[in-house]
């Protein structure tokens, strides 16, 4: 008996959640620096389809802080500031399985942010044909 799995939908998986983004260093005379972290993702695109990835946040980041994201993709989309509105963060995928692509996060805070205790945010990815 031979079993065949026929994929007709896009599949998107991530390697896990990134390390905590903690803005630590503070150079004399300058606002707190940025924190960066990264993970990877895999996107499988069936024949006859293309792949586009959108990203959004479950809620805004704390005041005077921003969270940027950049996904490695053929569309070479630059880093975007995440909001609750889905934005295209990866595009141009054609048929095939695209593995170990980089997801980069950058968290920045101005002096006006004050002390921000450890806070969780969820990034939602939506994959479209």
């Amino acid at each position, binding site marked *: *008996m*031979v*079993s*065949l*799995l*026929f*994929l*007709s*939908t*896009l*599949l*998107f*998986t*991530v390697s*896990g*959640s*990134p390390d*905590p*983004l*903690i*803005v*630590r*260093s*503070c150079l*004399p*005379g*300058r*606002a*707190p620096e940025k*924190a960066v*972290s990264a*993970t990877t993702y895999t996107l499988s695109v069936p024949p006859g389809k293309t792949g586009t990835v959108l990203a959004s946040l479950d809620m805004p*980041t*704390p005041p005077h*802080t921003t*969270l940027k994201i950049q996904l490695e993709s053929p569309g070479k989309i630059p880093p975007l500031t995440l909001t609750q509105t889905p934005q295209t963060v990866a595009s141009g995928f054609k048929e095939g399985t695209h593995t170990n692509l980089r*997801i980069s*996060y950058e*968290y920045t*805070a101005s*002096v*006006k*942010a*004050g*002390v*921000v*205790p*450890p*806070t*969780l*945010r*969820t*990034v*939602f*990815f*939506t*994959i*479209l*044909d």
Partner: protein
Amino acid sequence: MYALVLALLLTLPLFGGNTSFQMLAVEVPSTTSITTSGSPPTLALTISSSGSGSVSNSSTTYTVVTNANGRNTFKITGAITAGGAMPNSTSLRIRLPSSIGISKGTQTLSTSSVDLVSGIPVLGTDTAAIVYTFSVTNGYTFPAQTLTRTVTLTLTNG
């Protein structure tokens, strides 16, 4: 005769797309601090015929960064923390200008803390010169010498 059975498993698209998510932890810990650009050069003075003299230096700077929560303000104090009190007939004074706090003007340094800047807000950053003035009176009452003192600036609530 063998029967070849093909079982096709067809996965149907769910609402035309796919979703996934990641959870991120973000944090901005307290980085409230005061730093200096280094030590000033030797303040060398030549006493006059009356035995007095004074020399100033403002080549070094201090930087204060505050990112605390709450409504309290900060202040900067200064003290001589190594080398002991200044000898008789000499004085070491300091002035810290401030664009975000209230400078106390020129203060004489001793082994006891003295306020130099007050009213620094909980969120702010500032860099300004440190003005040192070394003065001597009755200079003929002690031999020529080099004095070394450590001055410590402290950022504290207040």
